[in-house]
């Protein structure tokens, strides 16, 4: 309203002071009154149109990114999987795949229900990838699964934004279009991150989320590894006079494993006689914090749907094992795109931090668990 008041002031000056009683003055007067009335009655409608245009612009970009993702997934399957038939139809079906979360009206036991549903989903996706790409080995199949999941995420983002755009256009409701327009910059950042993740997954390049897995790989490299609970490996490594059980997802294929089960297994195998658990993971940084900054704290540093975190917390509570966490800070974009040098360089700092924590909080001869969490794509052991 203050803008309108200022406009009225200006028009009065122009109309009476500068232009006098000339016809131009009258035209200006009428024009300003018309604008004033239009803004009073149609202000929110004009704002809605402007927002719809803004969302439309982003929707074109999202459509382009989504199409590129789909194209890349199909091309990679054709190149690696050598299928007999064209996999495009199967890819399209895969992109529409959904998972229904368990009912939480009675929350008791929901973790196990969620775990079961996630296991079924994982098996189903793996089977679909095998059907689409019969010639792919295990590593390539894991990478393909990750590529398809990134394409799936882009497809979902595009469809949600399109839904709000069309709904906003149909209803011309400022509040429908406003809620999507306000979070659009964040959504676009996420979509761009997934777009750059596509190539990383298709080519098997390490991603920012693999910082924890890389730390574990650095510590266990050169020692014998043993396959344990779902898609994880463990190495027994002498570490500053202690015995460290170093756990990570099995690489180099795109895989996060089930570190919850792996940690549980190692704790039970040692009858709970573990002096400390140290978890390393990539964590979301706040704007202003440096990329690859290392921070230390307590608790189970693990993302995802929460099943693994629950299992770890249950087990360490049973045996009263202290748990420490070291995190590498990065934003969403860096977490899913090819690993940046700053994150790679932070790995040595993390190893030094772990050494400090272990020396300060445990005695010589103790047994400890070091778990590197994250997607191990492009990282061996």
């Amino acid at each position, binding site marked *: 309203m203050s803008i309108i008041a200022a406009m009225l002031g200006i028009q009065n000056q*122009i109309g009476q*002071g*500068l*232009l*006098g009683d*000339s016809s*131009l003055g009258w035209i200006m007067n009428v024009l300003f009154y018309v604008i004033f009335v239009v803004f009073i009655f149609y202000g929110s409608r004009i704002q809605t149109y402007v927002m719809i*245009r803004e969302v*439309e*612009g982003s929707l*074109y*970009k999202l*459509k*382009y*990114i989504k*199409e*590129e993702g789909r*194209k*890349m997934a199909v091309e990679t399957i054709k190149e690696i999987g050598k299928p007999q038939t064209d996999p495009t139809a199967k890819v399209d079906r895969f992109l529409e795949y959904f998972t229904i979360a368990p009912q939480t009206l009675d929350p008791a036991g929901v973790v196990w229900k969620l775990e079961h549903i996630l296991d079924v989903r994982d098996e189903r996706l793996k089977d679909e990838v095998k059907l689409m790409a019969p010639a792919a080995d295990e590593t390539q199949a894991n990478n393909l699964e990750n590529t398809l999941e990134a394409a799936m995420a882009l497809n979902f983002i595009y469809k949600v934004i399109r839904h709000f755009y069309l709904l906003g256009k149909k209803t011309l409701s400022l509040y429908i279009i406003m809620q999507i327009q306000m979070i659009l910059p964040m959504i676009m950042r996420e979509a*761009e991150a997934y*777009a*750059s993740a*596509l*190539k*990383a997954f298709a*080519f*098997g*390049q*390490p991603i920012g989320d693999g910082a924890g897995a*890389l730390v574990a*790989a650095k510590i266990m*490299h050169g020692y014998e590894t043993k396959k344990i609970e779902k898609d994880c490996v463990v190495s027994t490594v002498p570490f500053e006079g202690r015995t460290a059980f170093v756990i990570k997802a099995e*690489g*180099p294929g795109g895989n996060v494993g089930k570190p919850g089960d792996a940690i549980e297994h190692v704790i039970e195998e040692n009858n709970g006689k573990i002096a400390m658990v140290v978890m390393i993971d990539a964590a979301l940084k706040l704007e*202003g914090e440096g990329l690859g900054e290392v921070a230390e704290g307590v608790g189970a540093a693990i993302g995802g749907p929460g099943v693994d975190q629950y299992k770890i917390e249950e087990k360490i509570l049973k045996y009263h094992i202290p748990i420490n966490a070291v995190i590498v800070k990065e934003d969403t974009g860096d977490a899913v*795109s*090819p*690993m*940046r*040098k700053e*994150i*790679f360089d932070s790995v040595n700092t993390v190893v030094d931090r772990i050494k400090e924590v272990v020396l300060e909080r445990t005695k010589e001869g103790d047994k400890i668990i070091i778990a590197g969490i994250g997607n191990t794509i*492009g*990282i*061996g*052991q």
Partner: protein
Amino acid sequence: MSGTQATASTARISTFLLLVVFLTLALSFVALIFGATVVEQNTEASWVLLLLGFVGVSLSTYVLFQTRRRLSKLKIVVPPVVTTIECKKCGFKNVREFQRGDYIFKEGEPCQKCNDKMLITAIYREVKDKEKNRMPF
């Protein structure tokens, strides 16, 4: 996919927007011409019209350039990823572009100096941060 340009069909510019921009441009030119012709009779009014004309021309030109820029921005840029291979025996280091199949701790090609097996020790991408140190916080 790297550096792929968007096709014209994917990034259509709205005709409504173009119409508004060109209308503003035309009106601004009229204001400029009118301002220039009445400069002798009413100096203050001509200055106001000239100002309005200049603002209109600048704004519409800016919007036109922005739409052009938006078109050219529609591409997925993937920065190059490099692989570092090291020989543990003689310390020879080789940095090359990432190749499909590379992974950290993979035993790679034989060393050019001592013929021992080399190991991939790093795979990363380097990004030149434009905004570095610009913020005072």
